[in-house]
């Protein structure tokens, strides 16, 4: 078995009285794609924000490659090789696509100067298929392109672990296919991926393992097929286990 | 000791007037997230409005009603020209557009009235309250500030229009979904904020001499009072004004008067840094 890349240990985040993430623990291994699923409001994005340092946890620890990164600010986390994308895209609107990716390369794990960063950025843009838009202002891209830009910026940081937050949401089937290709090729480069996704079909086909959150707590963890047939998971999603099972079967 | 109380009493009375000015500023921010940098110039307009009405033979206190109506109309005009087109632009834009309005008002005001001081000269009597000497003008100004605030609260909480203003302040999109014409409400809110600023200016004009530039002082005090009370919170702004007045009144006996401003601004910056939402909770 390969070594542990990320360890989430009894992680808890309270907003006022609400426990958005409640005592969640799991591990992920190098080279793995781990899916993070759960109904809306289950605390998935909050968990991402805890892992990459946007929020400080109320309790618990995050360890990356065996090092404690709990409470480190996001810009430190990136430098250690943990990059992420946003669920709601956040392009730097008044900067070009290339400049957006150069920011990622410059301030990422390799801490590059402007010129090497530009080379990395060109390479990454070609990789995600945005090369032709390099001089377009980022604000002018369509949603699918913006999603790919998110991925490109994160990749330009040269991460060992990539957190993808719903990169497929809002895309049409052709665009989804294209993005899935990108994700597979990222994995082929040996980058581990922790991804939040709502499209079950995608998560089931891509993930090595899946962690399910519900009301901030970990509900289940395991291989996609095991999790998909877990009645607790199905109930969490749909209230009616029979109905949910039927839908899942249809999708698969 | 009694002298300190006299000073504190003075501070309380003037603080209510500061509070009224601050409500005008904070109401606009609360409803549409705009910091109105024309606030000071508008306060000065209120001063000159009451001065002109007085010159035309209207008692300053009767003039207040006219000033309020003028303020409402003027505010709606300013909103339509300078605020509405850029309401969804970055905050810098509304700061600058309201500031440009301020430049225009002060420029015209300087051309018309120069920057020389003016006075609303009407007979003032002195009253004794618990043994302290208070001029009638100060007492009336404070009372008027309280009445106007009371009236505003009645409007906001008891009338349909007022409830619509609060709904828009709370969540513009949701209010629109419920069929509230948000553009009209925003215009009216800006008008009310402007009217309050002009009223406070008019009240100040009954107390002290003023120039077209005098509004600046009260604009800064309004900032301080609204931030103390939490930007966007009218009750907070009134309390902030009172606190400001009380600080002025209670520190005055112990330090050089000119240090009060330093203390006020230092408190202002400190509050912003430690409680950005004010002592009584702001909108965010």
């Amino acid at each position, binding site marked *: 078995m390969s070594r542990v890349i990320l360890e989430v240990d009894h992680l808890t985040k309270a907003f006022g009285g609400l426990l958005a993430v409640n005592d969640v623990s799991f591990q992920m291994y190098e080279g793995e794609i781990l899916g993070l699923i759960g109904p809306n409001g289950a605390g998935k994005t909050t968990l991402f924000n805890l892992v990459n340092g946007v929020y400080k946890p109320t309790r618990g620890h995050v360890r990356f490659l065996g090092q404690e990164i709990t409470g480190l600010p996001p810009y430190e986390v990136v430098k250690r090789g943990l990059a992420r994308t946003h669920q709601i895209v956040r392009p730097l609107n008044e900067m070009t696509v290339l400049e957006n990716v150069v920011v990622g390369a410059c301030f990422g794990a390799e801490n590059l100067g402007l010129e090497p960063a530009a080379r990395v950025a060109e390479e990454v843009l070609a990789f995600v298929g945005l090369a032709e838009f390099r001089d377009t202002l980022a604000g002018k891209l369509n949603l699918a392109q913006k999603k790919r830009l998110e991925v490109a910026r994160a990749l330009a940081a040269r991460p060992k672990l990539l957190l993808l937050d719903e990169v497929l949401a809002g895309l049409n089937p052709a665009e989804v296919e294209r993005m899935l290709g990108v994700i597979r090729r990222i994995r082929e480069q040996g980058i581990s991926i922790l991804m939040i996704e709502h499209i079950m079909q995608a998560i089931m086909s891509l993930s090595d393992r899946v962690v399910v959150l519900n009301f901030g707590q970990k509900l289940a963890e395991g291989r996609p097929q095991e999790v998909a047939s877990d009645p607790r998971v199905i109930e969490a999603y749909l209230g009616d286990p029979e109905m949910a099972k039927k839908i899942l079967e249809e999708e698969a | 000791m009694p002298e300190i109380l006299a*000073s504190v009493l003075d501070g309380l009375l003037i603080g209510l007037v500061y509070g009224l000015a601050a409500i005008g500023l904070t109401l606009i921010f609360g409803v549409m997230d705009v910091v109105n940098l024309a606030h000071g110039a508008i306060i000065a307009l209120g001063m000159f409005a009451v001065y002109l009405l007085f010159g035309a033979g209207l008692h300053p206190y009767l003039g207040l009603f006219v000033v309020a109506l003028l303020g409402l109309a003027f505010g709606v005009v300013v909103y339509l020209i300078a605020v509405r087109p850029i309401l969804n632009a970055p905050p810098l834009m509304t700061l600058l557009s309201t500031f440009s309005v301020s430049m225009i008002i002060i420029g015209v005001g300087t051309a018309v009235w*120069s*920057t020389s001081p003016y006075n609303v000269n009407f007979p003032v009597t*002195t009253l004794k309250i618990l043994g302290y*000497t208070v001029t009638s003008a100060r007492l009336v100004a404070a009372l008027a500030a309280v009445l106007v605030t009371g009236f505003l609260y009645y409007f906001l909480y008891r009338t349909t229009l007022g409830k619509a203003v609060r709904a828009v302040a709370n969540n513009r999109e949701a209010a629109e979904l419920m069929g509230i014409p948000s553009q009209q409400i925003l215009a009216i809110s800006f008008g009310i904020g402007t009217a309050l600023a002009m009223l406070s200016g008019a009240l100040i004009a009954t*107390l002290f001499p003023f120039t077209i530039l005098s509004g600046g002082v009260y604009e800064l005090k309004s900032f301080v009072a609204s931030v103390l009370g939490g930007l966007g919170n009218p009750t907070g702004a009134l309390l902030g004004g009172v606190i400001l007045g009380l600080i002025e009144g209670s520190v005055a*006996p112990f330090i*050089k008067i000119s240090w009060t401003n330093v203390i006020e601004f230092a408190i202002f910056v400190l509050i912003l840094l430690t409680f950005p939402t004010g002592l009584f909770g702001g909108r965010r």
Partner: protein
Amino acid sequence: MKRLWVLLALLGALALAQGHTVTIGFTVSKTGKYNVESVNQLHGIELWQKWVNDQGGIPIGGQRYKVALKYYDDESKAERVQQLYSRLISQDKVDFLISPYSSGLTAKAAIISEQYGKIMVATGAASDSIFKLGYEHVYQIYTPASRYLTGTLDMLRAADANLKKIAIVYEDSKFAKAVATAAKAYAEKKGFEVVLFEGYPKSTTDFGPIINKIRAAGAEALVGGGHYADGATFARQLYEQKVPLKLIALLVAPASDEFAQLGDAALGVVAPSQWEPLVKYQQTCGPSPAQFTQMYKDAYGKLPAYRAAGGFAAGLVLQRAMMDAGSTDPAKVKAALDAMDITLFFGHIKFATDPANHGLQLGHEMVQIQWQKQGGRLAKQIVWPLGAKTADLVYPIR
């Protein structure tokens, strides 16, 4: 044809201007805080110009020089003053300068006049400190701040041998602070107890906190103030709040006729004054006090305030220096100013010439006025020095 005449007239004017004109430059606060005082001063200067030119100009070295004035509005703002004085010197090429009104603005103008080596007669500026910076081209007409209130305190002591507690409250300006600081030292020497010594910011309109302090300190008399706008407001609020003071002496404001607009609030208020129409100086040159007063009344329909007299006197001093020098050459005029020791309708004029105080006024003295009711009308009376008085001091006033 008509055009030709206009052209000829213009050429004639030009010839006159080139040969026989001396141009005096200055700024006036037509707007802003100092506008009342400054416009008074301007009227004085303009009256001098008219007076000189009506006589055919200044006789210098056998020729007559007409006086031309060049001035701008400084809006009572320091930064404008420096721009405009640079402009007067480098662009308008004026021959001599008169200061703006007020010590603060004059201090700024003085730097420019000194940087360019232009002679400036400072009027409407009493601060001593301007003359302690090592300038060599600036000359003061007014009695300096350090001697401003000494007469007031002498008078108060003479009126009431038992009075102890006085408050000194002054505007935070160059002039008023200098006056107040000097007055404090003199008061303590005279056996008064200064129970309150405090400045208020220039923009003050609410004197409530200060008035509360005056009450709290138990002051029996008040001396202080600053300039017109703040002084008038201060006096009004002192009256409205019924502060029990035996004497109120304020700088500048009560010496203006406009002060009468305060009505009963003006009653009894005392002011040191640089000059009053009723003074009896025996002039050695220029008009007599009575002649000046009459000219001013004819021109402006009211009695001259001392700022107007100061403006006229500034022109007269320049005129006299050019006549003494027999030239408009700056070095010669400067020598004449250094040597000057004359009495005008305005009083005695003599400048310090030692490097540490160069240009400071040594000769001129203050008089004290008080607002009194005469047959139901408010009027200014000279109440000190005793030799010059036109009425007895009313004391205590409230």
